[in-house]
């Protein structure tokens, strides 16, 4: 059994929601909001929204797309916004830029829609993260698997989804550890391909467990 050069330290993360007193009642205000809101707000409505709504595995991507569809009934723009895959981003500035460009382009192409009043406003909020280390370390894949099985949603989300921004490497904490500390790059690649949009946190975890179980160097 391979022993990691560095143990995996599990932590849990809890997200407080801060209200930032900025709202949008139409597309133009959404565009302005996307330009000026904080990075923590972009994170809250995209990365963190996916975690909050992980149980929705069909047609939910981020808060901006959901509001554009449900409150403005603009299916085309909603579809474009929903098509943004957070796995493609290692920086919130890039993510903000793409969201802003989509809304701006739509407003330019559909000027009459720009000031149409939404059924309900969009309230910009932001995330405040608090992390606490858990008393769980894995030195081997077997230990990793055992801890993974009893990991909370928040901890799994932190390591598997939110970590992508922290690492800025287009990967997650688990895959990073598989490569760097266990020298298992294939397992890391397969783990990184688990689709977080069509899986719940539970089913993504189950997929990861089965990948670990199939690992010959376990």
């Amino acid at each position, binding site marked *: 059994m391979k022993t990691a050069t560095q143990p995996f330290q599990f932590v849990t993360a809890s997200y*407080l929601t801060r*209200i930032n007193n900025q709202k949008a009642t139409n597309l133009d205000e959404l565009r302005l909001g996307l330009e000026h809101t904080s990075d923590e707000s972009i994170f809250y409505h995209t990365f963190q929204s996916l975690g909050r709504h992980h149980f*929705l595995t069909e047609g939910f991507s981020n808060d901006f797309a959901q509001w554009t*569809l*449900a409150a403005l009934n603009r299916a085309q723009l909603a579809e474009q916004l929903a098509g943004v895959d957070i796995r493609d981003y290692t920086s919130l500035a890039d993510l903000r830029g793409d969201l802003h460009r989509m809304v701006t382009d739509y407003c330019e192409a559909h000027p009459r829609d720009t000031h149409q009043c939404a059924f*309900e406003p969009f*309230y910009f909020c932001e995330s*405040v993260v*608090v992390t606490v280390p858990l008393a769980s370390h894995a030195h081997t894949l077997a230990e990793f698997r055992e801890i993974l099985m009893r990991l*909370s949603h928040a901890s799994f989300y932190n390591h598997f989804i939110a970590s992508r921004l922290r690492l800025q490497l287009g990967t997650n904490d688990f895959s990073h550890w598989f490569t760097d500390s266990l020298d298992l790059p294939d397992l890391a690649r397969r783990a990184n391909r688990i689709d977080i949009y069509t899986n719940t946190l539970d089913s993504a975890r189950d997929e990861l467990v089965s990948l670990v179980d199939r690992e010959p160097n376990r």
Partner: protein
Amino acid sequence: MTGTLDESAVSTQTLDQYVPLLGAAEIDELRALAGPLKGRRVQMVNSTAVGGGVAEMLTRLLPLMTDVGLAISWDVLAGGPDFFEVTKAFHNALHGAPYEAKSADFEIFRKYNEQNRPLVRREADFTVMHDPQPAALIDARTDHRGHWIWRCHIDLSRPNRSVWEFLQKYIARYDGAIFSSPEFSRQLPIPQYLFYPSIDPLADKNKELEPDLVRAIVENFGIDTRRPILTQISRFDRLKDPVGVVRAYRIVKRYFDCQLVLAGGGASDDPEGSQVLAEVREEGNGDQDIHILELPAAAPLEVNALQRASTIVIQKSLREGFGLTVAEALWKKKPVVAAAVGGIPSQVIHKHTGLLAHSVEGTAYQIRYLLSHPSLAARLGEQGHEHVREQFLMTGNLKRYLSLFLHLLGGNGK
């Protein structure tokens, strides 16, 4: 638990009792978050020990806080009838009711807050003042030890200006404020946090009930459990639009042999409630499939059974606070058709955890759609249940407080 309370009023719930519902991992995580806070002292202050949503929430939350190792005290403001008259008027004015504020009212508010200063526990690491009544106790903060939080449970989106300007001077001196919805918050110079209201899955109103008991309770009201049941649980209040619900039902009734249940209180102790009830009866026009049930103020098992027996739960409010009856229905895996007002869109994510509507016709259409597509209705109910599990349970409320305390201490509790 210490303070001026009758301790028997506080529930004896423990976190372990939530393990069968939420899983050991989620409960272990709460204990892990609380680890760095062990022994920290928290004081909660509100204006009543029994009755009302805040007291009900505290009786359920505080035992859980104690269970994870926090040292909790809950103190209740003492005041004469003049104080409670003024604070009730403030409460209504902050909700937007017309109110001519007099300087004598502000003086009464200040006087009782000053008299209650000895309540403040200077040794507390965290002091949480609930709602406007104790807000001026911030004057008792003579040094900057500890963290002071104002928890606002009411909707401040359209407050009476003079009352809010008076209160704001106190609120601005806290370290943070908590609101139940971004819509209910105000521009303030302090950080504002979002804490959704929550339901307790172990409370009589939400706990699992045996199907036989559900059937017995519902049939006792004369409701036929073999035909679809549409239900709205709410006070007989114009803002809940019960007449609009009857009209939506009439449209649905053309296509489906269904029944409507309108159940709630507020008719016996409120002249407007009696009038609304009469209007609903008139609109019902003697239809035997419309069941108008006047429930007593506390009828948790009846509400639970009615929600569980329902095919679809409706909340067609014209204006709403948070509307926790929606979370109650979603927890019971019921498909919900609701108005997009107040806190409802936070609970009903359109087409994912329920359906939103903006009119009588829209409400009727969404109900018909769900009755025609039972598999979609079941999926919305399942997803609604998961949404409540993630966001609107008492354990989530505990987690938010723990996270806030950790954040205020710099992130690691040291």
